[in-house]
Every structure is written in C-alpha cells, then in structure tokens.
C-alpha cells in the first residue's frame, strides 16, 4: 500500500472536551460560512484526503503551487486549496474562527494564519492554462472574492451525506485494504455510468494488481452529467453481477470537479494515494472539458513528478470491435475502423434521454436497465 502523500495521514478531527467546548462557544465566536464545495474541501483536509495539507493554503504555499506545482515544503501539489473572502477587514491574523456549512451549522474551526490578495487572472492561467471565460474553472476563479484566507483547520462535526454507505475516509480504506490482504491497489476515478469500455480498462488494470478501488466523484457537476445516485446504482449493479467481491471496492469522493485537465489528474492521483492506492488509471483527456487540453496531456504531465510515489496506468482510447467481439485499443486489434464502434458517452446519454437502452456490446444490460428505470437521470 502507498504511504500517504508527504509521509503522514492528516487527521484534524477534534474529539472529546475541546470539541464539545468549541461547539458550545461557536455561536459567540466570529464565523465564516462556506459553500458546499469549500465545506467539502475542509472535510477532505481534516480526514486526510488532502494529506499533507492541514489547512487552507497560506500565501507561500499558494504561490509555490501556482509557480512550481509544489508546496513550499517541495512536496508535489498542483491545485490551490483556498478560501476566498470579499473583504480583508472582516478577519484578523491570529484569531480562531468557526466554519459553518451552507445551512449555517458549525462544523469546523480555523486558525487564521494569513490573509492575502491574489491575481485571479494569473491564477486561472496557471491552473487552467487559459483565461477563457467559457472554461468553467476560469469563470469560477474570476468570480471569487478578492482575498484568500489561509490557516490550519479542525473538524468539529462529521459531514452528513445521503450516501453514507459509500463514504469511507482514507484511514478506513487503508484498514479495509489491509484486511483484504491487498498490497497493490489501482484507483479509478469516474463521474460516469460504466459502459463496457470502462469495464475493459478496470479489468485490464486489475489483472496486474490485488484490488481495484472505484472512487466516483460526488459533488457539483455540469448540466447534463449523470446524477450521483444514478452513477452509484449503476456501479453497484455492475459490481454485483460482473466483479469478484474480494477484488473490488467502491466508495465515494466528495470533491468538486475543477476541469483542470493535467493538473487535476495529478491532484486526483494524490488523493487516491492517500486512500492507499499504489496505482491510478489515467485515461484520455482526464478531467478535461471542451478542447482546452491535448488528448494525452493528463498522462504526459506525470513525467514531471518523479517523486509522486503512485504509479499512473495510462490507457489510450478504446472502442468496440465486432470482429474481436469486445473492447479493444489500437495495440491489440488489427481490424479496420469499419468494424469498430466508439463507446460514445454522448450517444448513450441521448439514448437514455429517449428512454432507450444502449446495446449489450456497449453497456451491460443489467446496468442499462438500472439507469433507464430512473425517473431523473441527469443534472438539470
């Protein structure tokens, strides 16, 4: 199993008397209300998903990440994890503030270490490689408050999720993998209903490791994306029918898709390393949107991080070949394009929207039925 990124699994979950006292005092303390995406970042920091981060980034780390894709400690890290605020005057360096969720419930504590101004356009260009406002990440960055608040945090209350059954912290997956006797684990990131191409990729990787960790991202998505519960139910059905129980585990990752392409691929690998994965599958245009990134840019970037300590497993695009009778890629199938059919997510979505079931050579019938039976399937 991989060591946590930076060497130690961060645990910022307060327990006992200190937690009780802070929750009692919370109403009297200065507070900051976070939106659901920032609240998820806070939870991921406190449960170790973002190890070695123990808080939101101070200026030194923020600038190092933008300039060098590394924290000030030289540990690889590609995306800024920051809290933005509109006015500097509201908070002071050195004070403790209560973090509240989108419903106004206190859930965390932050020790304010740094308040700093930042250049939004510069941040967007360095993270997304563009300042085009059509890019969802750029648009979000340009809409942020003018200041960033950095400092260590503690969690006072557990995150409630409608998907409790699938919610495992890194400490839990590590114990689970150990109990299963897995030494090598491949992580698979997804935000889609599985078709046979996905299954081909997962099972090909599974041939070389002890177990697969299927880790769908749950959170804010684009219009037209599959709803979270549709993805989870579809995977449940696939795993029940076509996977060995002792070789596959699914749990959710509550995080925002940033669509930062290559830099997000590194970030995704780091998170899976913290869950205990030794390998991570990176496909074509991983975490991409539109045509902002080259089709394999998210694979090429791994060359720049020799010390990442998780092995990326690269896949090219794959298709169904009627002559081979299964999913193939250009390295294993000698047949012409006329015998091949793309696993087109767009086409399958369209079929579901029309109440139709994709053919069995594209998607397992049990999975397709589970999806088509859902009244609401997509983010509107």
């Amino acid at each position, binding site marked *: 199993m991989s*060591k946590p990124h930076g*060497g130690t699994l961060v645990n910022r979950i307060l327990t006992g008397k200190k937690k009780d006292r802070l929750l009692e005092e919370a109403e009297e303390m200065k507070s900051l209300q976070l939106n659901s995406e920032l609240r998820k970042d806070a939870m991921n920091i406190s449960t170790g998903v973002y190890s070695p981060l123990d808080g939101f980034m101070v200026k030194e780390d923020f*600038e190092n990440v*933008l300039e*060098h894709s590394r924290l000030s400690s030289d540990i690889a890290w590609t995306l800024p994890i920051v809290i933005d605020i509109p006015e500097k005057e509201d908070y002071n360096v050195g004070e403790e503030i209560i973090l509240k969720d989108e419903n106004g419930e206190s859930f965390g504590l932050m020790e304010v270490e740094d308040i700093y101004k930042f250049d939004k356009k510069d941040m967007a260009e360095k993270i997304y490689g563009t300042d085009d406002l059509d890019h969802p990440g750029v648009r979000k960055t340009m809409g942020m408050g003018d200041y960033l608040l950095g400092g260590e945090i503690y969690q006072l209350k557990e995150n409630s999720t409608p998907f409790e059954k699938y919610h495992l912290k890194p400490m*839990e997956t590590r*114990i*689970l993998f150990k109990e299963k006797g897995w030494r090598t684990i491949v992580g698979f990131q997804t935000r889609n209903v599985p078709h046979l191409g996905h299954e081909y990729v997962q099972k090909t990787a599974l041939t070389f490791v002890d177990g697969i960790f299927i880790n769908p991202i749950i959170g804010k998505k684009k219009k037209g994306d599959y709803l979270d519960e549709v993805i989870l139910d579809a995977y449940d059905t696939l795993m029940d029918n076509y996977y060995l129980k002792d070789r596959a585990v699914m749990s959710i990752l509550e995080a925002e898709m940033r669509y930062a392409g290559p830099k997000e691929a590194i970030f995704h690998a780091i998170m899976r390393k913290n869950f205990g994965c030794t390998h991570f599958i990176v496909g074509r245009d991983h975490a991409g949107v539109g045509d902002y990134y080259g089709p394999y840019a998210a694979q090429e970037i791994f060359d720049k991080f020799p*010390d990442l300590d998780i092995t990326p497993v690269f896949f090219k695009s794959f298709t169904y070949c009627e002559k081979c009778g299964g999913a193939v890629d250009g390295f294993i199938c000698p047949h012409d394009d006329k015998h091949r059919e793309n696993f087109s997510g767009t086409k399958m979505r369209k079929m579901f929207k029309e109440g139709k079931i994709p053919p069995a050579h594209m998607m397992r019938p049990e999975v397709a039925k589970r999806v088509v039976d859902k009244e609401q399937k997509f983010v509107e």
Partner: protein
Amino acid sequence: MSSKKYTTVSIPKPLAKKIKKRMDGTGFNSISSYVTYVLRQVISSIEEEEKQKESFSEEDEEKVKERLRALGYLD
C-alpha cells in the same frame, strides 16, 4: 506576482560535463532541471526508507473494522 525561489549549488566541473553528456536526448533543457529531477528521486527514496510503518491504535482499528462490517465491506 511571486519571485521564483531558487538557490545556487556548486558542483565539480567534470561532473557537470558528465551530466551534460547524459542529458542528450532526455528532454531536459538545463543541467539545473536535470539535477533537480535526480535529487527529487534520490530524496524521495531516502524518505521512503526512513518512514516508519503506518500504524493505527488497536482501538481505532477495531472501531473502523466494525463500521466496515456494518456497511458490508468486510465479512
């Protein structure tokens, strides 16, 4: 916005020559970037050896296993 944070390290000239020769065809465009790459690999492997085996308290581990069993992840 921020100044780049680099420092200068001196290495013997014969070693620099050897590195330059070895760099050919690797895609590195300077001795500095090649040396940075190699040092990161070396330090990473040393740190890996130094890290102690990960451990959780028995009590924590038992609580986690109970939850994993309740959720159906473990028999």
